[in-house]
């Protein structure tokens, strides 16, 4: 119990550090935030005047949720890239903490940061879309639960992606980008997965983003209850529960490999 309390306090170090870094790089944050708003707007505006308010919301949900899930996935991996560039990774790895504490701290920051940024973008949307977006029919409980459950899967993917920058910061970032773009293509972010070529559709079925968007769209567009989404959410939970330990396992072996071949040295 005492250990659990200690490890929780220790994991706060990563949250505090990342928020401190965020403050120091505020100009970059403003840029990323503006980009998220413009991205959601430009995608949503495609449908204004061409389709119904549901069609506009369909695309805006895609843009917002994709933004949130990619933050989730990227932040864990970026935290490692950053530490490799600054050369602090050796000091973090030398600290007397369990790796799980380190990674949980980074994941918690990713969730908080992702929620904060997405909530801000969501809050701004009505100023631009006005009557074109109707959130009166939304089931926020279903949406919230879906976001939380899907975070597990994306953290799992993030943990696996974090191994790339651990081994090579530059190539690692590119590798994370590739995983991200494949998920963007196959997960039905802006279209139904049925429009994809048949040979790509099986990959859609294993992407957690597919189920996340399905449930969130049902919640936001059709006021779907939690009960109606049980099968979808269970599947998402199973994927998350498999991906998180798999992520830790992959990271553990990646760390061992990095220590064997000497990849923890400062790079960049």
């Amino acid at each position, binding site marked *: 119990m005492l250990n659990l309390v*200690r490890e929780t*306090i*220790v994991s*706060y*170090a990563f949250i*505090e*550090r990342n928020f*401190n*870094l965020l403050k*120091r*790089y505020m100009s970059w944050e403003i840029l990323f935030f503006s980009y998220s708003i413009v991205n959601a707007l430009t995608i949503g505006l495609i449908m204004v005047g061409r389709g119904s308010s549901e069609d506009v919301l369909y695309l805006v949900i895609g843009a917002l949720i994709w933004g949130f899930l990619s933050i989730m996935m990227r932040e864990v991996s970026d935290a490692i890239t*950053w530490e490799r560039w*600054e*050369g*602090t990774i*050796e*000091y*973090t*790895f*030398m*600290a*007397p*903490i*369990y790796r799980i504490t380190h990674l949980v701290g980074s994941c918690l920051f990713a969730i908080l940061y992702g929620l904060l940024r997405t909530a801000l973008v969501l809050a701004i949307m009505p100023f631009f879309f006005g009557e074109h977006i109707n959130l009166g029919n939304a089931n926020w409980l279903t949406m919230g639960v879906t976001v939380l459950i899907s975070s597990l899967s994306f953290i799992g993917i993030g943990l696996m992606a974090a191994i790339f920058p651990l081994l090579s910061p530059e190539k690692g970032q590119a590798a994370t980008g590739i995983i991200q773009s494949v998920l963007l293509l196959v997960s039905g972010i802006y279209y139904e997965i049925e429009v994809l070529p048949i040979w790509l559709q099986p990959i859609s079925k294993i992407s957690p983003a597919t189920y996340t968007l399905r449930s969130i769209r049902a919640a936001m567009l059709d006021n779907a209850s939690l009960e109606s989404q049980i099968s979808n959410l269970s599947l998402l939970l199973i994927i998350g529960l498999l991906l998180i330990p798999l992520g830790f396992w992959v990271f553990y072996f990646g760390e*061992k490999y990095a*220590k*064997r*071949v*000497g990849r*923890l040295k*400062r790079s960049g």
Partner: protein
Amino acid sequence: MSRVLEVVRLVKGKSVEQPIYGLTVRGVTKHFYRSKRTNGKLRFHQKLQHMFKREREVIRAVDDISLEVNIGEIYGILGANGSGKSTLIRLISTLLLPDAGSIHVFGDDVVTNSLKVRRVMNRVSVEASFFKRLSSEENLIYTARLYGIPAPEAERKSKQILERLGFDANRMSEEMEHLSRGMQQKVAIARALLTTPMLLLLDEPTTGLDPKSKRDVQAFIENIRQERNAVIVLTTHDMVEAEKLCDKIAIIDKGRFIAEGTVEELIANASSQNGAPATLEDVFIALTGKGIEEEE
């Protein structure tokens, strides 16, 4: 007194078939692979061949090294650039896994019991390595939290250490990138000492510092030796520093220890072999055949 109790706690219950040293390294070897360098210009087809079929060469960074450091002792490692000093320090500090041999810190194996070892150890490297846009205070509090030290205590301790090192504590809120190299290195030393390590690994802590900062750091190391019963390993290029601070010195070349002993022993042994060297630098040149700053 509390330091003595700490040492007793660390070695309690461990096998006493052999005396337990603060640090024991036995037959440690570490090699790396690197792509074989090609001489001269390659033709196109050779380049293609080289891309797909890279030949690798083995670099023996640390080659069968053994050492023992007693509690309260400063052990110096002298070597040219690329001689294997930092690799050895990384092996001790659990950042690299040895290919052969074993390393024990207060009786605990650094590979199988790394978490326990990491609790009692810290390191200062030649590169300060911080989050450059964070202040020294933020960097130090981050480290302290990783070691379970509450932020107010970390702030108080950091201030004390930094002031003793001649660092103006009023500059603790400045971003690291605005501090000079010497000041950054002092913060790096504070980061290591904040956690009250029983094993302190100092990897060229004074390289690149101005004479004043160098003197401050050396005086501080001297103070730590007097105040604590810590085990200190110091790698350096500076012969005077090694002579002044170290109880025992090893000379490393191409990953191997080629001599070990007190300054007097090293000078005496080298004198008998190669004439009459008068200084540690002469001993170093006589044994390695090169100057200390020379790249391999």
